[in-house]
């Protein structure tokens, strides 16, 4: 739904009037009849011109030169596939019927055209849908005024602002947890004892312990004071690396689409469990945002995800991913089709630096080939090379899981969400 705080824009806008297609056709018939009457000297052709010319004589001379168009600004953030509504109202149209239609920009699906009621000024609701993630133009609202005979048409246009369309987050219910968590307050039970809510064990009471935590059943059984201990609750640092260097595969489910949706799903899931999430966008330019929490941080992450940074370091110039984006002990989740050797080298470097890295492979297509021998052999070599890349990463302790975008992320990540990943440096 649109933001109710959005202020409508109201301006007197000039109307461009022109003959309608119907009027042009009537004029053609009328003038054609008259010209033939003159050329041939046959009066019946002049008579043939009479009905269209009489019809043209009925149009209204009082056409408004300008009208007030009110367009309530639609919400400027949406998720791909969601409908966005906005209001359109007209005043001063002087009894002309008005029809509003959205002339949509690419990747935007407009809703149906809407007839604006004459004279009331009551805004009507229009809708559009962003079909793909990205920062893009919505289009323009075209209003066409018509008289009752549809002989004259007045048109005016209002350009809508750009919209940020976030990728639809992939579904991820479970979370991947590391065995060692940094000492920040959070919601994940850690291995160390602390002030959390999850039962950790029972131990003997020592002076200084809180008496309210005495475990009376154990104390009665053993004859000495025993205490219930609880697991500490910690937050985790998660850095998602989105590989935007390649976009291959079926439109709508290309590797880049899956990278975006997987990244968005991971960010949403970890931010919902109060973890600190950062993002590295590995595209034409390298962009990153360090881990953080909260709604504003989510917006910053999405802004970086959907739009290519206008400047920055090119990944070719980067030998190591920036330290500021990668806090020590962070879990690194990479969404990539693993087609860029620079990213693969960067992942190897991260593993050497002791980070726990997990790769979600989103490559779901192969190069096109005909059935020739050379083509088959080339495809086979390509497949073997891809297999070798994944094997070499697995060998250095970087698990690679494959995701096709049709199932939730929980399915490929199930082996890692059931138990904590043991951190080994």
């Amino acid at each position, binding site marked *: 739904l649109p933001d109710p705080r959005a202020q409508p824009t109201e301006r007197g806008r000039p109307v461009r009037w022109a003959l309608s297609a119907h009027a042009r056709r009537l*004029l053609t018939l009328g003038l054609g009849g008259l010209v033939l009457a003159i050329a041939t000297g046959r009066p*019946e052709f002049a*008579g043939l011109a009479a009905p269209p010319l009489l019809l043209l004589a009925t149009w209204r001379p009082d056409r408004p030169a300008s009208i007030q168009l009110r367009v309530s600004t639609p919400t400027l953030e949406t998720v791909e596939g969601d409908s966005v509504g906005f209001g359109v109202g007209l005043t001063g149209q002087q009894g002309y019927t008005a029809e509003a239609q959205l002339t949509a920009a690419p990747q935007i699906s407009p809703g149906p055209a809407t007839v604006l009621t004459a004279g009331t000024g009551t805004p009507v609701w229009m809708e559009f849908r962003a079909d793909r993630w990205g920062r893009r133009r919505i289009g323009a609202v075209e209003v066409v005024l018509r008289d*009752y005979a549809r002989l004259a048409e007045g048109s005016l246009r209002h350009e809508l602002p750009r919209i940020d369309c976030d990728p639809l*987050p992939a579904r991820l219910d479970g979370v991947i947890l590391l065995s060692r968590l940094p000492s920040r307050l959070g919601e994940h039970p850690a291995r160390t004892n602390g002030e959390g809510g999850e039962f950790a064990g029972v131990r003997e009471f020592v002076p200084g312990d809180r008496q309210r935590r005495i475990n009376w059943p154990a104390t009665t059984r053993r004859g000495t004071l025993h205490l219930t201990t609880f697991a500490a609750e910690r937050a985790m640092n998660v850095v998602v690396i989105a590989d935007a260097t390649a976009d291959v595969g079926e439109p709508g489910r290309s590797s880049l689409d899956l990278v975006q949706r997987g990244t968005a799903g991971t960010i949403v899931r970890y931010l919902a469990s109060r973890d600190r999430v950062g993002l590295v966008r590995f595209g034409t330019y390298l962009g990153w945002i360090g881990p953080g929490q909260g709604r504003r941080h989510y917006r910053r992450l999405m802004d970086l995800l959907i739009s290519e940074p206008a400047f920055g370091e090119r990944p070719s110039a980067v030998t190591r991913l920036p330290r500021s984006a990668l806090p020590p002990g962070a879990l690194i989740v990479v969404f990539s089709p693993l087609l860029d050797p620079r990213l693969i080298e960067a992942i190897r470097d991260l593993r050497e630096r002791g980070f726990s890295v997990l790769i979600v492979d989103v490559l779901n297509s192969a190069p096109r080939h005909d059935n020739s021998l050379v083509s088959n052999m080339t495809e086979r070599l390509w497949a073997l090379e891809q297999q070798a890349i994944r094997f070499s990463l697995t060998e250095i302790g970087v698990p690679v899981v494959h995701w096709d975008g049709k199932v939730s992320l929980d399915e490929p990540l199930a082996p890692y969400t059931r138990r904590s990943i043991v951190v080994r440096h």
Partner: protein
Amino acid sequence: MKQDASRTASDISPERPGRTGLVRSGGLRTVAATALLVAITAGWAAYPLSTGRAGTRIAVIVAVVSAVASIGRLVLTTIPRQSIMLPGRSAELLVSPFSSVPWAEVFVVAALVLEALHRAQPWHTGILGIALLGYLFAVHLAETGARPAVLRPQLPAIAAGIGLLALAVGTASLPGTTTGTGVAALRIAAIVAAVLAAGLALPVVGSSRQP
């Protein structure tokens, strides 16, 4: 943070069913009626083909091509562009020849020329005029998707126009009106009417430059 549990990334597909492929059945009915009307009009204007002067054959070809193209244009107007399942820009390339030329106007001119090339009776031309008027209204209704009831306010003007047409046909049918000073007077009256008709259009076109 937006996450709708009922939707996943797999819900997104490049083409969504339900949005496309919808055709107005009423629109198609009007297009069918228009096609019938345009065929009758073209046939009426061409008949009898054997008595036509030089250029009749060309006029017939132009009339048939423009008639077919104008109906094709109406069909494409009725069917949503997204439902034309053709790869790449093929849909645009298919549609552009129909949308770039005003085929209905071309057909009207071709039918009038075809009629002028015959030595037809005045009542023949009168019926052609009514058929052409009906064709233009049918095209208008098919384009806008409106019902025939929207023409009700224009009925007096239509009736008056047809009355004038009948008067002209009757005058032309009287012996001796196609020669002598009557013809010169008729030509002057026709020129004045043409100037008036052009004057009707100019204020609409001119007002587009108003601030």
